């Protein structure tokens, strides 16, 4: 096999985030319109490897992704050893805005998946003017819990393997085996309790934003929602229920994809994403 250096560059960003010093790992590829990508709960930026390696996209878009604190190669803040990590909607929103500011991303497109898809809706409600367009993957306004989170972080259970096994069925059975297992590896590498902590805001106190969706103005900022049909965590019906409350939203069901479209089958996902990005680019 001939060696290949991918066009993705990774760097560390030192910044004040949520009022504390942080060291974040940031990857990017391409040039043009900034496109900020948000990974799913318990995972990291490697989910967007297909996007960052796609010359058609990186010709016109500067694709940027960061590992959230506690995830991937980003460190937890100093003092983490005495803390119980719990993500909140407000903190996640603020984190996205602060990273945009630190990287001087001017009116970026933001795209998030799963919890990132939920926060995409929150950004559309609260901060539409700051974005050129918003793309939610596997976005739902609420969630129907079907398992107990406590087993994701328990001394008698391997958290990485349990987290990966809990999400493994969310992918389409037709997605390529190697990409599915790559996606699961990221989960197996997650820090103890982090997947569970991410889901705190998603399933917890501020986990139902249905009544807030009517505040979204898609004329101020276009909103695209794409959902894979095999996802049973956020099913197409769940996204459709949210979309019905948002005038002007563009909603697409993606057959043969699941909860991790950009990672479980990058080639197929890009066939759905490219036309969306073209529309955004044409919109100026």
């Amino acid at each position, binding site marked *: 096999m001939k060696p290949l250096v991918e066009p993705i560059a990774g760097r560390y960003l030192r910044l004040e985030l949520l009022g504390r010093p942080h060291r974040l790992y940031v990857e990017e590829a391409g040039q043009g319109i900034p496109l900020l990508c948000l990974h799913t709960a318990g995972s990291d930026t490697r989910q967007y490897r297909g996007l960052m390696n796609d010359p058609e996209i990186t010709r016109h878009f500067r694709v940027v992704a960061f590992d959230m604190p506690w995830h991937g190669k980003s460190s937890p803040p100093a003092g983490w050893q005495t803390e119980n990590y719990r993500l909140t909607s407000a903190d996640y929103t603020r984190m996205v805005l602060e990273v945009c500011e630190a990287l001087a991303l001017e009116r970026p497109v933001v795209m998030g998946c799963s919890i990132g898809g939920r926060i995409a809706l929150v950004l559309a409600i609260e901060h539409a003017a700051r974005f050129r367009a918003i793309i939610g993957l596997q976005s739902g306004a609420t969630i*129907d819990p*079907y*398992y*107990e989170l406590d*087993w*994701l972080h*328990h001394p*008698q*259970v*391997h958290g990485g*393997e*349990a987290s*990966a*096994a*809990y999400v*493994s*069925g*969310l992918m*389409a*059975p*037709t997605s390529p085996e190697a990409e599915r297992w790559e996606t699961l590896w990221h989960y197996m590498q997650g820090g103890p309790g982090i997947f569970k902590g991410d889901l705190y805001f998603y399933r917890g106190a501020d986990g139902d934003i249905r009544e807030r969706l009517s505040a979204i103005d898609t004329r101020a900022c276009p909103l695209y929602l794409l959902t894979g*049909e*095999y*996802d*049973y*965590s956020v*099913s197409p019906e769940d996204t459709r229920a949210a979309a019905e409350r948002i005038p002007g939203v563009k909603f697409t069901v993606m057959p043969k994809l699941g909860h991790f479209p950009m990672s479980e089958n990058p080639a197929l996902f890009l066939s759905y994403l490219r036309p969306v990005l073209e529309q955004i680019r044409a919109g100026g």
Partner: protein
Amino acid sequence: MTLPLETLKERAAGDALLARFGLDLDCALLVGDGDTDWLIRIERGAVAHVTKGPLVMPKSDLRLRAASEAWARFLEPVPPPGYHDLFALRRYRRIQIEGDIRLMSAYLFYIKRLFALLRGGGS
């Protein structure tokens, strides 16, 4: 019973994923379709015994029961959304999972693999 459990021991023998995820596993799984119950005894990660019911008050660590129609769709070579995984069945309340959930969580890859092996020919 819709699931070809009588062939499970044969299908599981030498499976690399079961070997990877079944480290140190000893347990009894009860699997039902609302009509028949089967007991699967796993020893040191290997399927040791598969017993067809009726069973008389069997001792089991985990019980998984779904209607035979749900199992039938689960077994399709490319199952439809909502039927393609044990947790998909769980999400839509098509399966009852009871018993030692800690054990299930620790060995979920193994358990999912065991059921996935029942798909396709060989039965």
